[in-house]
């Protein structure tokens, strides 16, 4: 199971702060494109972190059971 965490405006768009993805042997890029289309995240600016490390290359990395993906948008309030 992979846990997905949404922050800031992305959590509002996804209408939840966390969700679990049961499917196994998924690549990061596949999960991201699925979530992006399901929650209509195409217009948002965000970074992706896997296990608390921001990944610049959204590759064919296979996600394992227990991995955590985070959607990190910039915040703008002050």
């Amino acid at each position, binding site marked *: 199971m992979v846990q997905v965490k949404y*922050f*800031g*405006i992305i959590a509002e768009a996804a209408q939840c702060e966390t969700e679990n993805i049961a499917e196994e042997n998924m690549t990061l890029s596949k999960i991201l494109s699925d979530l992006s289309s399901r929650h209509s995240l195409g*217009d*948002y*600016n965000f*970074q992706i*972190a896997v296990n*608390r*490390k*921001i*990944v*610049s290359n959204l590759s064919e990395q296979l996600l394992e059971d227990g991995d955590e993906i*985070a959607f*990190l*948008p*910039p*915040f*703008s*309030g*002050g």
Partner: protein
Amino acid sequence: METKLPSYHHFPEDEMNRYIRQITLPQVGLSGQQKLMESSVLVIGAGGLGCSILPYLAAAGIGRIGIIDGDRIEESNLHRQVLYGAEQIGLFKAKEAADSILKNNSDVEILVYEEFLTQKNANQIFPDFDLILDATDNLFIRYVINDTCVSLNKPFVYGSIHQFQGQVSVFNYQGGPSYRDIFPEENQSAPNCAEAGVLGTTVGLIGMLQANEALKIILEIGEVLSGKLLIYDLLSNSQQVFEFGKVPERKKPEIQIPFEMISAEEAIQSESLLLDVREMGEMPAVHLENVKQLPLSILELESVNLDKEQEIKIFCQSGVRSRKAAKLLSEKGFQNLKLIRGGAKDLLQFAETEIKPNSKRSIVK
């Protein structure tokens, strides 16, 4: 206001006494206090974050503090901008914040800039400070702060909030990543406090974390949040630190097109064209005499009907489209473009208060 900084070996007794409880910390000591007193910090924005940052920097004995903010105090600020009182509504935040923190520590030299940050004044002001604190509520100006800090090789402490969550990081610190390395896009939407809600304690806490990073950088203690993004969730009390991967090879900071931001108040007082780039029918409608509406979607086609020599002040709802419009017009050769901060809502608010009975301008609802 400015005091001669004492040398390490003969600390004046009154200053020794004022700072004794922090000097007592082995990580601070007399040498740490000396570092604080010799340091200079620019705080950009005297809003919610700034009101939290500023009193702690002053109280700690930072030698020189700059405060830049072109905003005035509004009633709806008071629930979170706790340096101000109801009797100060309408006054410039930068000056009032300075007066407030001087009450705690009159030895601090304070430089007040009653203006909004622009690319132009950033280049003039930043060189006078060691460290920059970003306490703004504006996504776009953050790129101006970042790029100026990169070109001048100065670190900046970033803090921002979204509802009950806050982000803190330190950019451009000792060769570490810059804001642009993490968030390269600048054309996306993210609301600021004017639109999204905020609790005073959220900006208070995030601002204090920023002040804390500033003190650590100056004192050279602890682990600075460089190459890391802290996200603090105040509803769950959870803190998560995300590490940046390998910093990509630093691209040259993009040359910013220096669109000056002006307040709605300033815009209303001028005779020049106010260009509304919102789509037709968006509320609130602004029917001032010098307003022309050309929605962003047709601006490229319609720009032939605008005078390139004329000063054009652009507004929309939140500031995203007005910036896109300014870029578009700039590429078409328009030179004299300004952005109106606060958009239609602020403009309308000032239009209502500023219009005199005999004024040429009128407002129709």
